[in-house]
């Protein structure tokens, strides 16, 4: 039920977007050199924060661009949205 501000299109209804999980997970450049534990850490382990969480969103029924959002999971307030590769202002 949120309103999300796509960095490319502006404010749109929640229903135009899809959620993409935790942001800023960096896919290892050399996966073959990782131990099973290290790979599992990247692949499976997520923080699942109560509070401010950085996460990925896709404007899937709009411009189809991926971007990041800083959302407080306890009240769903979105504090900032920013493009992939940029840093959050909050």
């Amino acid at each position, binding site marked *: 039920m949120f309103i999300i501000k796509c960095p490319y299109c502006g404010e749109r209804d929640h229903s135009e977007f899809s959620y993409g999980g935790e942001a800023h997970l960096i896919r290892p450049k050399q996966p073959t050199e990782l131990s099973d534990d290290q790979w599992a850490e990247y692949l499976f382990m997520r923080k699942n924060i109560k509070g401010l969480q950085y996460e990925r969103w896709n404007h899937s029924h709009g411009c189809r661009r991926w971007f990041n959002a800083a959302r407080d999971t306890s009240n769903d307030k979105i504090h900032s949205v920013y493009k*992939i590769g940029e840093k959050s202002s909050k």
Partner: protein
Amino acid sequence: MTNEYRLSSGGQINRSESISFKFNGKTLYGYKGDTLASALLANGIHLVGRSFKYHRPRGILTSGVEEPNALVQIIKDKGKTDPNLRATQIEIYEGLNTTSQNSWPSVNFDLGSINNLFSPIIPAGFYYKTFMWPANLWENVYEYFIRKAAGLGKSPTKKDPDIYDHCYYHCEVLIVGAGPAGLVAAKTAINSGKKVLLVDERPNFGGNLNFSNKDYNKINQLAPLEWIKKTCLELQKNKNIKILSRTSVAAYHNYNYLIMIQNLTDHLPDKDKKEKIRQRLWKVRAKKVILATGSIERPMIFDCNDRPGIMLSSAVRKYANTYSVKCGNNISIFTNNDDAYETAITLHNKGVKVKSIIDIREKSDGTLPKKCNELGIKIHWKSAVIYTEGYKKINKIHVMRLSKDNTNVVGNKLKIDCDLLCVSGGYTPAVHLFTQSGGKLDYNEKKHYFFPKKNTLSQISVGSCNGTFGLKNIILEAQEKTREFLDIKETEQFNVLESEGGVFENIWLIPSSKISGKTKSFVDYQNDSTANDIKLALREGFKSIEHVKRYTTTGMATDQGKISNMHALGIISEITNTKLGELGTTTFRPPYSPITFGALVGRNVGQFFDITRKTPMHDWQEKNNAKFEDVGQWKRAWYYPSGNENMYDAVQRESKAARTKAGILDASTLGKIDIQGSDASEFLNRVYTNAWSKLAIGKCRYGLMLNEDGMVYDDGVTTRLSENHYIMTTTTGGAATVMGKLEDFLQTEWPELKVYLTSVTDHFATVSVCGPHSKKILEKVTQNIDYSDSNFPHMSFKNGLVDKIKCRVMRISFTGELSYEINVQANYGQSVWEKCMAAGKEYGITPYGTEAMHLLRAEKGFIIVGQETDGTVTPVDLQMDWIVSKKKYDFIGKRSLYRSDTMREDRKQYVGLLTNDPKEILEEGAQIVAEVKNKPPMDMIGHVTSSYYSPNLNKSIALAVVKNGKKLKGKKLYVPMPNKTIEVIVSDTIFLDKEGKRLNA
């Protein structure tokens, strides 16, 4: 018409318009403006239902949305009926036909009331305790009886013929509730120039002010009704405001998103309902929200407080003033506050006898009690009603004095005759919407209610829903808070006259002269839970309010405890000696009051329920008797029965023809992604398991795509059209998700790659022709293509023409036969299909559907993603090691293939199965065991994924995943079925033409 309880004058009903309606088969009369409840009461009818557990007679308690007892069913045409409606909200119309719920066989003679005699054996948690085991009795025995006995209305059996609407609405200010607070807020808000929406669930505005006594309540020298009328007229003239009545806010979500339900025709006679929209669901986004939802009067909790003829004091006042109905002739009132005295005065002034007022307080200095004294009404101070008599209607109350600390009753028992007892336990702010929106509450220890404390949304609460009581306070607060909220300068002066009030005092559970446990003090009327049930739950160790609620079912009925929650909390807090503020409240969830499925669904019914996608050849298929199957949103030709053929025979014939003559399949639904860019080859290298850099222009390659966890995700053939241009095919179901996944990686992981993706699934039609005669047919249909094996080998592609139409022809095969796919711009699909049919006629070309396609590929052991795989299968499990590049440095999912778990030797692996009896066809999904036991449980080592009778091999074949399957080839396994066990031998997955000779036939 009788209406013996109708007062001779007054009220807001239209006495010139008499309306007939039915209740439990009996024809009764009321007036335009009546609710079902007011019309029943005018006819002296209180008894409207039986209680949920004990089947005790129950009467109308309230006058609005909070009603827990008077639930009725509206009977319409055959099979069309509306259950669970509150008689207090139904506006009567000519022809209205209603029945009581929750009584069987009738409300006056109820078989279930035998439960009442046995009530000691139906304590809290009874259902949990009794019906736990044996579990299989649930389905056949318990549920049947519980449902019948509980009688929570009947579902309609026919399709809903009514029309429902959805409407999106945006406004700057939404005001919920048009009582005095809401009206003042609206009057103030329209000065802001902002776009305002004002809604109220009732047909008339004004809230409780509507039935306030005009001698004690005046605004700007106007009587309540006059002020309401004047204010509404003023609002209606203003262009900034939209006003909706009969519109209830069902849900208040985050970001000020509210769902409202508007009743448009429910109050109209049947003839006026025709062809009109019945209800409209509003989806509102408001910049700012003002909640003015009012408050709900509480009853009192004492022994046998549930008899018909016991009603809320404010409701009795409303029935008298609004509907001109006296609810009894000989009235007593039980109260803990001054508001109930207004009811007494109102009734007295209308000539109804008020015999006594029982007040738990020592005294009150208020204007209204003084007036009652003057009128000669007997007031029993510091006293309580401790018991009532009368079965289907109250006829006596027992009154005793309260001890100093209110924990006991003392002295002599006084018995007073009455036919109506008004109860008033004070008011509870209606904070439901506030909490739904994420608001936090605080508890007022003095005034005994929860009130809005904090909310992060742009929202305010005004009036009694904010815990503000007294007309003057309400009006001033509504004005001041709205002014501040909307930043408005100019204000109107309000001059409010109201009665001086005494102090409110509270006892959650009225003490009794009986020993504890022998009383029936109902807390939740609708779910029939008593104070003793709550005590029992606490004794049994339940502490959390949420647990007590579920164990006793208090507050879990369709009214969500609008009446009961506060008392339940109060009793728990007293017994556990916890402060109510620390105990917290249960969660109020949407909808505030029940809403119809029809309104939720709106116009999305029948063909509009979901999108249907049809291929360009759909019309031809329909004309040629195709049966269709749903694949996602697609309608795909499943098989083409000829004459009286059944599905099995049709599929056998189609499959045979595809291998012996020629078959034609519509493959247009396969996902198609156009990939261009200088890094396209590198991109494919990273998303598929096999190597792509060396694929020559004009060649096709099969690819397998994994998830990062190493599990098979999708598959399909990709063709290199030119140096930097590929066309990828995906599974039909995977088209959208594969596209999404590829876009995700390009945008977020590999933004440095120059690759551009375009979904072209709908842009091309694909005709697949296979079988020994396919080449001859293609030669007839297309031009400019040399079909010699040397020029056009398997897994390659050519550009050509079908007459003047450009086409791409791929020589690829999912059946194992010599096979070509013609791709043309979608709108030429059907004409190319028809050309192939005409050209293939002499060779016996046979259209085949998805079922035959599945059978043909199973003969070859080709997997279908989603059938042989389920998100837990790796390419190694599928024995497709050949497609996993060892040389490539990385691809999606590669690292996961080397995790200890994915490398296990004894994972479930892909195998073929053959039955001893070649006629025996296994069931897809059947479990496989190595060792048969007499009865389950047995160790299951796998399951059948695909199974067919092969007309080309004349035997049944099956594919399966089996633990350690690679090593079990030739071994005997078992498939236990309900009435037999089938022996199977593990085989290779390729049943036909292992060498692949047919591809070049």
